[in-house]
């Protein structure tokens, strides 16, 4: 079990995270928050790349910083900007990292073959990576994080740059893995983790806003999300009044999904809909969504 205890992180005087308390057991945790909210900062502390200004992180009761190489031994990590050696092939690069992870050479060879098949880049396993597309590199990154069969797997925006088919494959891989390990995934693409995450962690104003299951979080805006059709001409005024969540064209009209917080304003032509995680995200971080 991974326990985050009263964690705060300051960059100089700038406060990135404040009084964070979290608990992770085996399962998938989705970390969602807008740009600059501190996801990467939290992840870097969980991977001991940077250290908390205050507080501590414990794995089974031991501070992860004190565990040192024992902790790194059970950790898999995909950084937000995954770097690689351009002149290496995926196989060479993964062999190199396996060696640094202290994995026996024969075991590593077998594991690498497996992993490259898993992320479907086995056909280019021996091509130099400088010829790879962004999505292919990202998949090498995912494979790399799984080399040591980590007990704690931390992925910082793993689906960035993946096409829908590969995102689907990724979801399946992760669900498969989640049974006996802690998986923490940060992402902006809410739909990528909405249905596979056991719990969602949301950060707002440097603090934890939610740490709960998707359905419980969605309950927070139950009875507030509606859909209706309006004319394009009216849309400007409408969006001044309500937070728009999504819009699409429907013949001559526009179908709009929005938040209405005042029960008295509800009209009979509106259809109440079940909120999803993306609605919550837009609702919570809506500062600039209402048209002025």
């Amino acid at each position, binding site marked *: 079990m991974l326990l985050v205890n009263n964690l705060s992180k300051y960059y100089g005087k700038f406060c990135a995270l404040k009084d964070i308390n979290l608990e992770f057991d085996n399962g998938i945790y989705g970390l969602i928050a807008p740009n600059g909210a501190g996801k990467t900062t939290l992840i*870097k502390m969980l*991977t*001991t*790349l*940077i*250290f908390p200004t205050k507080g501590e992180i414990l794995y089974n009761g031991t501070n992860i*910083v004190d565990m*040192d*190489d024992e902790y*790194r*031994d059970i*950790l898999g*990590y995909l*950084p937000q*900007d*995954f*770097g*690689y*050696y351009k002149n290496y092939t995926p196989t060479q690069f993964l*062999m*190199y*990292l396996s*060696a*640094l*992870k*202290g994995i026996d*050479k024969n075991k590593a060879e077998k594991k690498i073959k497996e992993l490259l098949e898993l992320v479907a880049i086995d056909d280019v396993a021996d091509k130099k990576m400088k010829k790879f597309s962004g999505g292919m590199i990202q998949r090498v990154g995912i494979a*790399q994080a799984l080399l*040591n069969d980590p007990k704690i797997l931390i992925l910082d925006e793993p689906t960035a740059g993946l096409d829908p088919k590969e995102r689907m494959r990724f979801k399946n891989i992760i669900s498969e893995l989640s049974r006996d390990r802690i998986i923490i995934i940060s992402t902006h693409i809410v739909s990528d983790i909405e249905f596979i995450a056991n719990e969602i962690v949301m950060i707002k104003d440097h603090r934890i806003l939610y740490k709960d299951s998707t359905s419980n979080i969605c309950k927070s805006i139950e009875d507030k999300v509606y859909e209706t059709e309006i004319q394009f001409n009216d849309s400007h005024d409408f969006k001044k009044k309500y937070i728009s969540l999504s819009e699409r064209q429907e013949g001559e009209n526009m179908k709009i999904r929005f938040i209405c917080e005042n029960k008295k304003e509800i009209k009979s032509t509106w259809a109440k809909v079940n909120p999803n995680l993306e609605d919550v995200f837009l609702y919570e971080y809506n500062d600039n969504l209402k048209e002025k």
Partner: protein
Amino acid sequence: MDKNNIEVPNINSIEIKDIVEKGIKPKVSFFSYLRDMYKKVGFKNIFHDISEIIFIVLITLFTLCFAAIIIKDNDYIEVWQIYSFIFVVSPILYLLISFFSFFNTKQNGTYEVEMICKYNIYQLSALRMFIFSIVSILCNSILIFMFFIVNEEINLLRALAISITALFLFSSVFLYVLLNTSHKITKYFMIAGWIIINLALMISKNNYYNVLLTQLPIYVHLGLTISCIYLYIKSLKKLINFRSVKGEM
């Protein structure tokens, strides 16, 4: 007493494992730790940038040989100035390789993935620097031997002692600065300082400096050498356990 009656303390196997692990882990000596790492990671991976390193070694050796030839051809050079030359240049090869090595690792986008591996950059660096220092000693010795062939006034043992002392003294200080200051300027300053101060002493023909290099009994020199090696190993150990603040070095 009945043999069967001896009480066995009741410790379960997990506790024993705990005790054994806790007891053994810190006791692994520095050298067996390095040897272990070397075996596990392998030469090819430790020196994945070997071609760049060889390039630096060759360039440096070439430059130093060139400088040595100029000094040799100069009739006004005194023996102690040769010692002084050795003292100044001995750490240079080591310095260049180590500096390149750190700079290179930090420039690479791979820093983060390498940093969370079991053997991370600091531990690998300790091993690499240890090997660099041996390579440096070998190169320096060859250079000194060449001096000796052309100028038999030189005491070979003293020259070697001076060279090794300089190398380890400098690298200990280098590591200390690397681990204890985050200001880049301090690092450059100390490197430039080493060369400038020594050159100034050599050119000004400072008497103490002269005596220190040539008149000191040889066993004092050897004693100094051993202390510096000790200091160096200690700083390498620190590097292994080093956890950088902010992920910066």
